[in-house]
Structure formats: structure tokens, C-alpha cells
């Protein structure tokens, strides 16, 4: 077992454990903050896999922006700070959800394990550096990049239009 694998394993266990707490916890704000831990350790996972730029974007967009949005939404919907049992569905539905979740994990994991389970890869640290990523994005991927910027603008306008105050003046 190499050092990289040990680091990867630790970060992966942290990501999965904090993700589990984020979907099972009974305090909404704590769930959102455990999501920060999960997404942050996934940024570490990306670093171990040699994707520096992706790790930085993950920290900026997910940990920086998305979680703040989630916390704002919790604040604006007057979410309870104290532990609340009403966050979760009834026990029968939770058991069914757990069965479906385990089944999805089993199918995805099993299929991928059969496909790539016995291979090992050499991580090339220079591959995810800013220069090759920029060359790829602003080279062959420039059209999807531009379409995505239009999508972001459309999402921004849609969010504004949906939540606009429609009180007649």
C-alpha cells in the first residue's frame, strides 16, 4: 500500500462518513456543515488523484458558494436550530430509502468493480495543472464552455424571476 493510497483511503472514509451524517442528522444546520466536511475532503481526493484545478474549483464553488446558498435557504425558510424529528420521512419510507440506496451503491460499485476492479493507475501530477486544463477548456471545449456561461446567466435570471416580489404597487 502506497502513501497515496493511505491518504486517499483516509479522505474517502472522511467524505463518506460526513456525507452519511449530512443525510441522517437531525439538526439542519449541522447537516449543512457536515456537507462542508464531505465536499472539502472530496477536494482532497481530487488532489490525490492529480486534479489540482478541479480541487480548487470544488473548494471555490461547492464549499464556498453552494453551502452558503444552502445555509441562506435554511435561514430564510426558518429552519429549526434544535434537533427535529420532522426532517425525516416516516420510518417505513426511511427503511425503503436505505434499501434503495444500498442497492444503488451495490449495482454501481459492483459493475465498476467488474470493469476496472483489478487495475492500478499511475497518477501524473502535472496532468491537472492549470496550463493543460486551460488549453483543453479554451481549445476543443470552448463551445460547451460558452453554452455553460449562457446557462448560468439563464439560471440567475430564472432564480430572480421566480422569487420576485409580486405585490401589486
Amino acid at each position: 500500500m502506497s502513501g497515496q493510497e493511505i491518504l486517499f483511503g483516509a479522505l474517502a472514509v472522511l467524505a463518506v462518513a460526513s456525507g452519511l451524517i449530512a443525510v441522517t442528522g437531525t439538526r439542519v444546520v449541522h447537516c449543512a456543515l457536515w456537507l462542508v466536511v464531505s465536499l472539502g475532503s472530496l477536494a482532497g481526493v481530487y488532489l490525490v488523484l492529480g486534479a489540482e484545478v478541479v480541487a480548487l474549483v470544488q473548494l471555490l464553488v461547492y464549499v464556498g458558494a453552494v453551502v452558503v446558498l444552502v445555509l441562506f435557504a435554511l435561514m430564510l425558510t426558518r429552519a429549526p436550530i434544535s434537533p427535529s424529528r420532522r426532517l425525516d420521512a416516516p420510518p417505513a419510507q426511511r427503511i425503503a430509502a436505505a434499501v434503495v440506496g444500498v442497492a444503488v451503491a451495490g449495482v454501481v460499485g459492483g459493475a465498476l468493480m467488474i470493469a476496472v476492479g483489478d487495475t492500478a493507475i499511475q497518477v501524473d501530477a502535472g496532468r491537472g495543472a492549470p496550463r493543460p486544463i486551460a488549453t483543453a477548456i479554451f481549445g476543443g471545449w470552448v463551445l460547451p464552455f460558452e453554452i455553460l456561461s449562457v446557462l448560468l446567466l439563464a439560471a440567475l435570471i430564472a432564480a430572480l424571476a421566480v422569487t420576485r416580489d409580486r405585490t401589486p404597487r
Partner: protein
Amino acid sequence: MIHLVGPVVLAAALAGIGIYGLLARRNAVLVLIGAELLLNAVNVLLVTASALPAGGLAALLQPPTDTTLGADPLLPGQVMTIFVITIAAAEIGVALAIVLLLFRARATSDLTAVRELGEASATYTETPGAGEWPERVTT
């Protein structure tokens, strides 16, 4: 060297957790947390795929003699991860706007309390954005 079992198991576990979060939560914001974890499972797989050598899995078993593949054809894995993160940001922005609208219209973000759409609902209003910001319904 990293064995591919690790990333694969991580992605599968995140997908399972995300599905559980989507199905077992009734607070709309917490359902979205499940969706975020599901999107991150995809990202882990894309980044893992981008770490494969040129030519993909086949090149691991049998190094290609044909060098026309280019130096790094799997780099798009990382580019697409960045795109997926962008789409996730757009998605959660619109989704949280809808949750806020739901809260203003029905004074709750509990998805099991919202069983009817439109006029069939007892709390239906013609202009959901109008009126006072509701107090939280104590449960």
C-alpha cells in the same frame, strides 16, 4: 500507484448516500443536499477516468503501438468535472429559489405537507409572492 478499487467504492458509496438523502428526507433543502452528494459521486468517477493513461483502460493492459491517439485524450474528464460543478451551482440556485417560493406560498418547506398543486390546494394563492413573509409553522 493508486488501485482503482478505492475511487470506485467511494463513488458507489456517495451515490448510495445521495439516493438515501433524496428519498428519506422531507425538508426540501436537505433533499437538495442528497442531490449534491449524488453529483459528487459522478465527479469522483470523472476525475478517476481522467487519471487513466492515454487510450483508457485498454492501454493499461496493452500499451498502444498507435501513437496517433495524442498525448492525453482523457483530460476531458477533468474539464467535464468542472462543467458538472458549474451545472450543479446553477441547479442549486434555481432549486433553492423554488424552495423559497414554496415557503412563501405554503409557509413550510416540508415536502410531505405539499400534496396538491395549484387550485386543488387549500393554501393556494393567485400571487404566491404577495403578502407577508410567513412565520414558521410550529410542529
